[in-house]
């Protein structure tokens, strides 16, 4: 039975999450050099329209269709066949099935856009399109099915992921690392000055992400109820805690930086994502604060290993999301969400192990499949632009445009 309040809340949440994909484009775009800013924005915008189409044609049914062995959905809903205005009670009983589908679409769209940070300033646009379409089909859709699909094997095992810690952030982050290793370092990495070209644009992106995240986590309650409010509150709290910690870390190092607090906020939002419907505000402070510590030092480590995973999607999303999923196993509380479970701190160590299994399997799957996919695409069409195209910049070489 359709509830208009629930439907209104999920509809606006969907719009908020869809906004986040171009926001990622601004967030990343302002961080790269001026000669590649447009190409970075372009790639995230392309993820939006490419996956919008892939999702309605095949993605939704693979991710949420009636399960085949707990591993993938069947093709029952190819082209949205059978997905109508009446609710699908298996997923969300009080909103139209089309509404649930579209909300999920927003997540499928933003996830591949996060990976863009790994290969900015050097990927060929055509290769990017091919990679993104295949990644969505062979990595995102299966993992979404395992964790969120009815009958999905990780869901059946009891793994909890309220809004996408494993499905979105762990997959994107570990995939980013994989493709960064395949595509190789940018020319001049470690030697040349690679300064961000537009820090206000980065902050605009971060702001739209923070704003959209209320839909990302709050909307995942699939209703306008107490749980949605709780998720909304912990989302804001974790972001604030993480931004504060990052500010302190960067101040200890040198100066409190704008780029730093923007990044810290995003890291906190990432970490709270899987836990947002299961934990309370105080836990959120801990989850956000620790996430910044972890991601900050993961970046230091990455730089020490001289890996050019350029915009640290692995450190922020991969490791931030992994921590958030593990933290769910620690801080989850059935008093917040009876449909969830208790975590370690509330007397149930079993959840922590389940969460660990979920993180490990999704991370490994994402990494391995992405590595293979990237290698294959590199062999067939080539992932990277020529040296000359890279030096002149992707804006001119790939898009014949310039700021």
């Amino acid at each position: 039975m359709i509830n208009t309040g629930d439907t209104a809340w999920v509809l606006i949440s969907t719009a908020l999450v869809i906004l986040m994909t171009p926001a990622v484009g601004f967030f990343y775009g302002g961080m790269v050099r001026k000669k590649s800013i447009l190409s970075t924005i372009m790639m995230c915008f392309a993820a939006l329209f490419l996956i919008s189409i892939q999702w309605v044609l095949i993605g939704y049914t693979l991710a949420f269709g009636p399960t085949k062995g707990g591993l993938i959905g069947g093709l029952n809903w190819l082209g949205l066949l059978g997905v109508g205005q009446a609710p699908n009670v298996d997923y969300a009983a009080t909103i139209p099935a089309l509404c649930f589908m579209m909300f999920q679409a927003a997540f499928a769209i933003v996830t591949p856009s996060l990976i863009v940070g790994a290969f900015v300033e050097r990927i060929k646009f055509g290769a990017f399109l091919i990679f993104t379409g295949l990644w969505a089909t062979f990595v995102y859709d299966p993992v979404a099915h395992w964790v969120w699909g009815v009958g999905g094997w990780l869901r059946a095992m009891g793994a909890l992921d309220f809004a996408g810690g494993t499905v979105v952030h762990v997959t994107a982050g570990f995939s980013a690392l994989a493709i960064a290793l395949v595509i190789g370092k940018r020319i001049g990495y470690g030697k040349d000055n690679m300064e961000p070209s537009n820090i206000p644009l980065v902050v605009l992106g971060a702001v739209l992400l923070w704003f959209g995240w209320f839909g990302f986590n709050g909307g995942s309650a699939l209703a306008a109820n107490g749980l949605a409010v709780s998720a909304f509150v912990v989302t804001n709290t974790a972001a604030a805690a993480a931004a504060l910690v990052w500010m302190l870390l960067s101040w200890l190092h040198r100066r409190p930086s704008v780029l730093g607090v923007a990044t810290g906020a995003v890291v906190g939002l990432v970490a709270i994502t899987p836990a947002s419907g299961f934990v309370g505000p105080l836990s959120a402070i801990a989850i956000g604060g620790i996430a910044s510590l972890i991601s900050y030092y993961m970046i230091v480590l990455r730089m020490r290993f001289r890996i050019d995973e350029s915009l640290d999607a692995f450190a922020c999303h991969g490791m931030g999301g992994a921590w958030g999923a593990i933290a769910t196993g620690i801080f989850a509380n059935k008093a917040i969400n009876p449909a969830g479970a208790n975590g370690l701190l509330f007397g149930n160590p079993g959840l922590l192990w389940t969460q660990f299994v979920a993180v490990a399997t999704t991370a490994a799957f994402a990494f391995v499949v992405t590595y293979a996919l990237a290698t294959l695409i590199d062999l067939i069409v080539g992932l990277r632009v020529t040296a000359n195209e890279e030096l002149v910049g992707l804006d001119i070489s790939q898009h014949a445009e310039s700021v």
Partner: protein
Amino acid sequence: MKKIEAIIRSEKLEDLREALDAQGFGAMTITEVKGRGSQKGITLEWRVGEYRVEFIPKIKVELVVDDRAVDNVIGVITSVCSTGKIGDGKIFISPVEEVIRIRTKEKGPGAL
């Protein structure tokens, strides 16, 4: 003393700075400029069709050096910044009457 003004490709700046620094010429001023020479212009994309950009972004590097260093510096610039294609840029040399270090009020080649 001479002022060496070089208009170079933007992407060559880092390599040039490093090479000049290695030769002991660490001091320079850079400006982002737009210009055209034989390269004339490039064609970029509008929503449908194209538009011409008549002035290409370049970097202008300026150094003031002792007369005896001029050939060395020119050699570094030409070897680092040349690609062999149209658009590599130009170097202009002009005499400099005096140089003064503001902090200590020193004058002459010693102030360079």
